[in-house]
C-alpha cells in the first residue's frame, strides 16, 4: 500500500488521469514548426504530445478521451521571455551587480499575476528581476503548471544542482544612479567589464587548482554565476533600448563571449543589420505608444518587421506588468499591423522564445515528443475577438474560461488582483 502511494506521488500523470490519451479533434492547428492544419488532430498522453496531423491521417488511440474542438484554434502554449509576475524581487540597492541573487528565492507562484498569465495563454515564463541594476540577479524559467511552490513550477529538477534560468542585465538609463550605481554609460560598461574580468581570474584559479581541494579558491556565489555565463551555460537577458546601448552589449559579448538575448531593444530598427551580423536574438516589446523615458522615444511598432527583414530571430515579451500577460497575443497582432509576417509573429510568441530560453527541444511547437503545452482559442490568434478558452500544461488544464473561478482572471473584478502590489519598474 505504501509503495502504491509513493508511485502515485512520483507520477502526477496517474493522479490526474493522464495515463489515458487525450484527443483534440477538429480544430485548426498552428504547430508553428509547420504550416497551419485545418481540421487537425492533436493527441497527448503522459504530459507529452503524441501526434499532430490532419483528421483521418492521425491514428486515434483506443480508450482515448476525445474533445471535439471544431471551429477552435489550437497553438502551442505561449512563451514569455520577459516577465515580472509572482511579485518577483532581485538584488537590493547595496550594489549595481548581484550575480548571486536568485529570483527563484523570491517568487510567489500563488500570486494572482501567475493565474493572469495562464489566462493569457502563457505556459512558460522567464521571470526576471528589474532593470534598475546593471545585473539584478539570476532569472528563472517557469512552467505554469498548477502548483503551490516555486519548486512545482521550475524547469530545472533541482535548483541546488542545476541552472534554472538566465541572468538579468541592463544598460541605458534605468541602472544609473548615485554611487555605487553608475552615473554614465561608460562607467556602467566599465563596472560590468571589471566584474567579468574578476570571473575570468576566478576561473584561472580553479583551473590552476587542477581539482586539488586545498588549492581551490573559496566558493564565491557571484563568481560561480558569472562562470556559468562565461561557459555559455547561462544565457544573459540584457535590457537595452538605445541603438548605441545595443551596440555596447554586442561589444561586451565580443569581449567575453557570453550568449545573450537583447531585450526590449526600442531602437533595434536603427541597428538591425548589426544585430543580425552578431547573430544575436531579440526579444521585443510592443507598446501602445513610444516614450515615457528618453531612451524609449524612438520605439516603433515596426521593430518586429525591421528585425524580421534583417534576418534576426525575434521573440515578443510582455514585460508584465508593463504590458499585461492577458494581451500577449495582442502584442503579436500589433507587430503584424506594423508589417511583421503573421507566421513570424506567432513564432515570436512560441518557438522563438523557446529557443532563447534553450527550451526549444521541449516546448514552443506542436510536435510529437514535446511537452503537451497548448492553448485552445475561440478563433484566429491575431484577432481582437479571439479569447483564450483553455490553457493546458503538460496535458493538464490550468485555465478554463468556462469556469467562473478561472474566467475572473481574464476579465478582472472585485478582489481578483487585489492580493498585494505587483512589480513596478524602476524608471526615471
Amino acid at each position: 500500500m505504501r509503495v502504491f502511494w509513493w508511485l502515485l506521488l512520483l507520477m502526477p500523470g496517474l493522479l490526474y488521469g493522464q495515463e489515458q490519451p487525450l484527443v483534440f479533434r477538429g480544430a485548426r492547428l498552428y504547430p508553428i514548426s509547420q504550416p497551419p492544419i485545418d481540421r487537425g488532430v492533436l493527441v497527448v498522453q503522459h504530459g507529452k504530445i503524441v501526434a499532430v496531423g490532419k483528421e483521418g491521417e492521425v491514428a486515434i488511440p483506443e480508450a482515448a478521451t476525445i474533445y471535439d474542438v471544431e471551429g477552435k484554434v489550437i497553438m502551442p502554449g505561449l512563451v514569455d521571455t520577459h516577465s515580472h509576475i509572482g511579485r518577483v524581487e532581485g538584488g537590493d540597492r547595496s550594489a549595481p551587480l548581484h550575480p548571486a541573487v536568485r529570483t527563484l528565492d523570491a517568487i510567489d507562484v500563488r500570486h494572482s499575476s501567475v493565474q493572469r498569465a495562464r489566462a493569457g495563454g502563457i505556459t512558460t515564463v522567464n521571470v526576471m528581476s528589474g532593470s534598475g541594476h546593471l545585473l539584478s540577479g539570476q532569472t528563472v524559467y517557469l512552467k505554469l503548471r498548477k502548483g503551490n511552490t516555486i519548486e512545482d513550477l521550475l524547469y530545472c529538477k533541482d535548483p541546488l544542482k542545476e541552472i534554472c534560468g538566465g541572468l538579468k542585465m541592463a544598460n541605458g538609463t534605468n541602472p544609473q544612479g548615485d554611487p555605487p550605481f553608475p552615473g554614465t554609460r561608460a562607467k556602467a560598461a566599465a563596472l560590468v567589464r571589471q566584474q567579468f574580468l574578476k570571473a575570468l581570474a576566478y576561473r584561472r584559479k580553479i583551473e590552476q587548482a587542477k581539482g586539488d581541494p586545498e588549492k581551490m579558491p573559496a566558493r564565491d556565489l557571484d563568481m560561480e554565476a558569472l562562470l556559468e555565463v562565461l561557459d555559455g551555460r547561462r544565457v544573459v537577458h540584457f535590457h537595452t533600448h538605445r541603438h548605441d546601448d545595443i551596440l555596447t552589449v554586442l561589444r561586451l559579448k565580443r569581449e567575453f563571449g557570453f550568449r545573450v538575448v537583447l531585450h526590449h531593444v526600442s531602437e533595434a530598427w536603427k541597428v538591425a543589420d548589426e544585430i543580425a551580423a552578431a547573430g544575436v536574438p531579440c526579444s521585443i516589446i510592443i507598446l501602445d505608444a513610444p516614450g515615457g523615458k528618453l531612451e524609449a522615444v524612438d520605439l516603433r511598432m515596426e521593430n518586429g518587421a525591421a528585425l524580421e527583414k534583417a534576418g534576426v530571430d525575434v521573440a515578443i515579451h510582455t514585460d508584465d506588468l508593463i504590458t499585461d500577460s492577458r494581451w500577449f497575443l495582442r502584442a503579436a497582432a500589433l507587430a503584424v499591423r506594423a508589417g511583421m509576417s503573421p507566421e513570424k509573429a506567432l513564432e515570436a510568441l512560441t518557438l522563438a522564445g523557446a529557443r532563447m530560453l534553450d527550451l526549444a527541444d521541449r516546448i514552443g511547437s506542436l510536435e510529437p515528443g514535446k511537452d503537451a503545452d497548448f492553448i485552445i482559442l475561440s478563433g484566429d490568434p491575431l484577432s481582437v475577438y479571439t479569447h483564450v478558452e483553455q490553457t493546458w500544461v503538460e496535458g493538464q488544464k490550468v485555465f478554463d474560461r468556462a469556469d467562473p473561478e478561472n474566467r475572473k482572471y481574464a476579465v478582472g473584478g472585485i478582489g481578483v488582483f487585489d492580493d498585494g502590489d505587483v512589480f513596478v519598474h524602476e524608471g526615471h
Partner: protein
Amino acid sequence: MESKMKVWSLLLALCLLASSVQAQLAVRADTLYTMNGAPIQNGVVLIRNGKIEQVGPAEAVRIPEGYRVLEASVVTPGLIDAHSVVGLAGILNYAHDQDQLDTSDPIQPELRAIDAYNARERLVAWVRRFGVTTLHTGHGPGAVISGQTMLVKTHGETVEEALIDSVATVAATLGPMVRRYFRSPGTRAKAVAMLRAALLKAQAYRRKLQAEDPTRRPDPDLKMETLVRVLDGEIPLMITAQRVPEIMAALRLQREFGFRLILDGAAEAYLVLDAIKAAGVPVILHPTMVRPRGETVNATLETAARLHAAGIPFAFQSGFESYVPKTRVVLFEAAMAVANGLPRVAALEALTIQAARILGIDDRVGSLAPGKDADLVLFDGDPFEYTTRVCGVIIDGEPVQQTCH
C-alpha cells in the same frame, strides 16, 4: 489680350492653390458609419470648405466635378479621446515636458490648459495616426482640483489653431492618488471636506458679486471666478473617482452643489450602476486595458458593456500614464471593450457622438452630417480589429494623414 490671358492664368493658379489648401473632397466607403442613423453600405461623404456638405449612399450622392475622391473599406467620424493629458504631458516624461499637474496647491481651478498645451507634441501626432481628431486634454488627475481642461483638434501648429473650446471642464480628483502629490489632503474624507469648503467659498463669492454697491463687490479672484462658473453650470466638474467610496462622494457633492458632473475613471462603476444612472451622470471610463493595481485594481474589461446595458452614457479615454506607454490610444481601448461584450455600434458611438455630447461639442463633431466639421477616419477594414490599419485621417476637410498605421 495677352494681359487678359495673364490675369486668367493668375486666377487659375490662385484657384488651384486655394483648392490644394482647402480641397473639396469626396470620401467613398464600403461601410460608412455616419453615427447619424444606420451605417450606409457604399456611402459617400462630400466635403466642402472644411465642412460636411452631403452624406448618403453612392447612388444618391453625385460627386461633383473637381472633387478629389478618397476611398476606404470603412469610414467613421473622427474619433474623440474624451480625456487625455497629451500635449500638456509630453513623450519625454522629464520635468520640463510634464505640465499636467502643479503641486504647489491642491486646489487650482484657475490653471488654464491653453497656457500649457504644446500643439507640436509628438504624442498628439501619435494618437492622430490612430484616428483621434478631437482631444479633450488638460490638467490631469492628482490634485483635489488640478486645473482646467480644453478641447482641441489634433492638428494645427499652435493651441490657437487647434482650439475648439478653451475651457471644457474643471478637473478634480478624489481618492488616494492625491496623497501621492500632497501632504494635505492626507485622507479621502479630508479631500472631500476641502472641495466642499472651496465650493462654499465660491458660493459666498458669487453672492458678494451680486452686491448692488460696486464697492462692496470682491476683488477679482481667478480661483473663485472659475468655481462660480462651475456652480452656475457653465463648466462641468469632471471628478476622477475610481473606487465606490469616491464615486459615491462625487455624486453626493453633485447633489449638494448642483454642478454638472462628469464621472471620470469609475473603475468600480459596475458596482453602483443604479446610483450613477439615477444621478443622470455621464461617465468617461478608464482605459479598458488599465493596469489592475492601485485604485484601478478592481477594474474589469466588461465595465463598458455594463454601462451600455444600463443605459448610462459613457465615452473612452486614454487617461494618464506616468511611465510606459506614455499614452494610450482610445481606438485600442474601445476595441478591447468590444471584444468583451460591448456592441460594436455602441463602441463607435462612445468614440464619437456620445463623447461629443458629454463634452458639449456635438453641434460640431461626433457624426457625419451636413454642416458639421469634416473630421473623418479611413480604415482598411473593421476599425476594431488589431491588424486593421488607419489609412487616412481628415480634419476640417484636410487630409492630415494618408499613410497606413
